[in-house]
């Protein structure tokens, strides 16, 4: 359902060109559990941002669920991000002035879902992620693991087809990191496609498909 063909992403900094992605060909089946590893600067985040429609390839085609999403309008791309894709980041990116429940509610608000329905869904996902007592806490009052769980709840509340995680355990200790991975694997069991960028070999090895990158290219894939 994700099909990248001859994808390149070139950044120009002054008169210097950085080939962050160099002719990538990649297909990822629905429901896959993929880890992406590689040295710093190898293009992992760039790949993830491209798949998540936060960035556009310099050349190549990208089909998501058989649609060439690079050709969609800005509004339609936003809708795809909202409804088909979930993002998790190393630094959580929760909005500090909103409570846990309100952060989770945001995608529902953006999707125009009525308030009563939103409250029901937020409550359900808070229960699933074991955050019910933390619902009215602000991010600053939560532990790192709790924050990432809120971020995961936010990323998955609209049941996306793909969940993209860029070093989701990078800011967490080993134990909380493992809890977060367990949560992601649980989502994978329910059918969500998971793509995780990680530096942690142990976590990378848990994925069913392991992609290695170097200098903007895929060097191993198994």
């Amino acid at each position, binding site marked *: 359902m994700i099909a990248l063909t001859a994808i390149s992403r070139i950044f120009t900094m002054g008169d210097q060109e950085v080939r962050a992605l160099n002719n990538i060909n990649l297909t990822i089946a629905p429901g896959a559990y993929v880890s992406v590893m590689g040295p710093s600067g190898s293009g992992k*985040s760039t790949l993830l941002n491209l798949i*998540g429609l936060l960035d556009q390839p310099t050349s190549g085609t990208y089909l998501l669920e058989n649609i060439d999403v690079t050709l969609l309008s*800005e509004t339609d791309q936003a809708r795809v*991000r909202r409804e088909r894709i979930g993002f998790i980041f190393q630094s959580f*990116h929760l909005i500090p002035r909103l409570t846990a429940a309100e952060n989770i509610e*945001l995608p529902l608000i953006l999707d*125009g879902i009525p308030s009563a329905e939103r409250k029901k869904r937020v409550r359900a996902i808070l229960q699933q992620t074991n955050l019910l007592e933390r619902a009215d806490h602000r991010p600053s009052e939560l532990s790192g693991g709790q924050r990432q769980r809120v971020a995961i709840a936010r990323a998955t509340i609209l049941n996306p087809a793909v969940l993209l995680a860029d070093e989701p355990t990078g800011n967490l200790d080993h134990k909380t990191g493992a809890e977060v991975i367990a949560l992601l694997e649980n989502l994978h069991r329910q059918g969500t496609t998971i793509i995780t960028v990680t530096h942690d070999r142990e976590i990378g090895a848990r994925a069913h498909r392991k992609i290695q990158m170097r200098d903007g290219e895929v060097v191993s894939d198994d």
Partner: protein
Amino acid sequence: MTRQDAFILSFRTVVSYRLRAILILLAMALGVAAVVVLTALGDGARRFVMNQFTALGTNLIIIIPGRSETAGGFIGALVGETPRDLTLEDAASLTALPGVRRFAPLNVGLSEISAGGLLREVTLAGSTASLLAIRRMRLAQGSFTADNGPNPAEAVLGAKIAHELFPTGNALGQRIRLGDRRFRVAGIFAMQGESMGINTDELVLIPFDHAQALFNTQSLFRIMVEAESRSAIESTKKVIRVALKLRHDGEEDVTIIGQDAILATFDKILRALTLAVSGIAAISLAVAGILVMNVMLVAVSQRTTEIGLLKAIGATHTDIRNLFLLETLWLAVAGAVVGIILGYLGSLGLRLAYPQLPAYPPIWASLAAIATALVTGIAASILPASKAARLNPVLALSRR
């Protein structure tokens, strides 16, 4: 995102950045309040002048010797030359004219007044009893009965003059001297204070024939005419012009001013003044707009990661632009409301401090101030909001 949610979300953001909100709100409010108070002041001044004019007497027509060529006629005529005299006969000829209710010849000059060894200079007016009716002058005591003459040597004293010359007793019936002539005090003006440059408290009024003798002149300073109604002023002016032209060998050598014309001129001037003053006040709103723009630009760069995140979870350009526009809209609305309240309180303060000044803020000015605040707020946030909407989400999110 639904409109309602956008309103709620932006409102919550505004409230959570309290200092920023107060700052913008204050800037907006002061601008709006300035417009309201200054227009109240300007309009109050206009009404004050209008009231003063009406206190002069209603339906007044003033005939001044000499032809003024200036369009307005008023100012030029006041200082103008006197090519041909106005006479009592001119005045008397007006009686029969249609639209004329009453008339009064008028001579004005300075004279010395003395009584019981006390001496001072006064403004002396010579006229008939009709002047009292035309100019709404009231007597506290006595009477003034002068007609076209000849009249007895009687004077009406301003209340202040009477008190100065006769500090201990009643002035009525006493003897005074004006120049080298003797008069009997026949009346005292009621305290009225100053009205359009004439202060009846310090005026002495005598029959016009005595004034002419005192000033050694046959001519009149002006003729005051009261028309039968406000609507009759224009037609009466025409009739008077024709009649006097006939009497003056076909020459149009008098200036005839209707009170309504003076009123209209002053009204125009003061309205323009009010407008100018409120325009200046509106500049403070524009300054507030620049402050708003600056604060919002700072807000956008402070919330870069938040904007990137919103994009990552599926907010469109429009969503983000609207959120930022609505933030300033809330502040502009709140600023306008607070500003109107401050403005009305300020105007109330003005009215309490200067009770004669009817400093009521005109409705149009309040509406214009609110509209300006809203337009300024929105205009000032267009740039920051579209900057936020165009933000590159990858760069925004990579900032730690």
